[in-house]
């Protein structure tokens, strides 16, 4: 499938170009977060404030929870980037598939507070339409006039990658000519931060937020909460050619699997993730040695990074250069896989692997060639982006250069 458009709203930048530019600089975006003040973990990677009423209109910006605002803005960017005009397309042939994991950053706390104060009459009628996870896709479809399948995938931290796989299947089945595929989430709430901290999944590096997200480093102590949205426009190669649009890259294969090992911990030997990755390679018709770069899940938790390294060693004789985008924008949950795939597209296009921040001393138990500090030139013609989530759910996509 051709990737003909990208849209990204991340803590690294508003838009795909701004995000890419920040990534090449290699600095983490983690900082103190007023939303989390007073909590054991009081920092995150927030998207910079943006003028939602100005960009979306007052009525729409008020109707949409933040995770849907981010999705609509990223989708609009991706569609414009793909040189598509929603006023002209055959909407019935356009689908939307977005990964969503956490949802409802803004809506639930406010409405629960009203209910718990004994005022059910003050609960907004928008409580449900704003907060249910499928609204991310529903609102994008409504905003752009996409009349085909409109779906949300939920495989926790793998949701965005799962969405790309499903989008690929819809195009192969000829259910759509175009799919806006990606993910969105905004989970920077006091409850989500507390709950992940109680799971001992978050970094507690309060004295040094910018150094907190350190995938594959020996001193890593958990991930950092992030937020954002990423959307890719996918279409069959012939369809892109007929429109006269040059693809940025190709989505060549997808695979998924489940560890069925533990409800949160990844299988330490990486067998589950390796199975998803092998399936994606087989789907793309590529051998492991033909892959020149791995965009890792790389959360910076002790368990993930070692299991992921094990998975890569299962599939690759010698794993190719790896980078971990979460070192810079934290973990954007359902958006992560989509943003990482979009960054992988840009990696192939610019022939440059953005660095992993904060990797000062590779964990001696991990044998990987991780790109650190500065971008590294690459001639990779094919790359993989992999994701794992709570529930043991794994997903992988293969991307190839145009």
């Amino acid at each position, binding site marked *: 499938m051709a990737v003909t458009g990208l849209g990204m709203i991340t803590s690294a930048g508003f838009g795909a170009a701004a995000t890419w530019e920040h990534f090449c600089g290699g600095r983490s975006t983690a900082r103190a977060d007023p939303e989390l003040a007073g909590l054991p973990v009081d920092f995150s990677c927030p998207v910079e404030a943006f003028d939602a009423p100005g960009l979306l*209109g*007052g*009525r729409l910006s*008020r109707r949409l929870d933040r995770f849907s605002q981010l999705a609509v803005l990223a989708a609009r960017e991706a569609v414009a980037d793909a040189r598509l005009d929603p006023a002209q397309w055959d909407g019935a042939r356009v689908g939307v598939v977005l990964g969503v994991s956490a949802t409802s950053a803004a809506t639930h706390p406010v409405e629960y507070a009203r209910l718990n104060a004994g005022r059910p*009459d*003050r609960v*907004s*009628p*928008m409580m449900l339409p704003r907060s249910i996870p499928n609204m991310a896709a529903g609102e994008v479809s409504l905003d752009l006039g996409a009349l085909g399948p409109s779906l949300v995938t939920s495989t926790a931290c793998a949701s965005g990658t799962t969405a790309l796989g499903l989008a690929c299947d819809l195009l192969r089945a000829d259910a759509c000519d175009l799919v806006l595929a990606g993910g969105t989430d905004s989970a920077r709430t006091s409850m989500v931060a507390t709950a992940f901290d109680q799971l001992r999944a978050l970094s507690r590096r309060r004295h040094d937020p910018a150094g907190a997200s350190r995938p594959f480093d020996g001193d890593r102590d958990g991930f950092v909460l992030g937020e954002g949205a990423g959307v890719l426009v996918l279409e069959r190669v012939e369809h892109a050619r007929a429109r006269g649009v040059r693809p940025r890259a190709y989505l060549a294969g997808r695979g998924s699997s489940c560890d069925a090992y533990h409800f949160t911990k990844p299988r330490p030997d990486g067998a589950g993730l390796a199975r998803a990755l092998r399936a994606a390679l087989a789907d793309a018709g590529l051998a492991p040695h033909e892959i020149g770069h791995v965009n890792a899940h790389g959360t910076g938790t002790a368990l993930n990074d070692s299991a992921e390294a094990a998975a890569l060693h299962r599939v690759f004789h010698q794993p190719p250069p790896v980078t971990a985008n979460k070192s810079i924008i934290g973990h954007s949950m359902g958006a992560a896989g989509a943003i990482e795939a979009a960054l992988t597209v840009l990696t192939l296009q610019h022939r440059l692997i953005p660095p992993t921040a904060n990797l000062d001393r590779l964990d001696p138990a991990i044998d990987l060639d991780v790109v650190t500090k500065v971008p590294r030139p690459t001639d990779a013609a094919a790359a993989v982006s992999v994701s794992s989530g709570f529930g043991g759910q794994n997903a992988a996509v293969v991307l190839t250069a145009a």
Partner: protein
Amino acid sequence: MSESYRIISDCLRAEFEVAAELVRPEAALADLSLDSLALVELSLMVEERLGVTVADIRPESTLGELAALADATVAADATLAVGAAR
């Protein structure tokens, strides 16, 4: 114009993007492209900003009528509060 009218018209312009020239005392809510869901939202918003519950916001009410109803409710509430203080 009363405080209530000012608050209601501010809400309509800022939150519901109703064109300023349509926001007039004699305009009926039904003529401002507000559906039933929007009316519930409007009543909650007015309640939050005025501090009183304005019962019975109906599509056929004009903004002037709605503001008068809100004013009366605010006044009744103040009387009640004074009574309670005694």
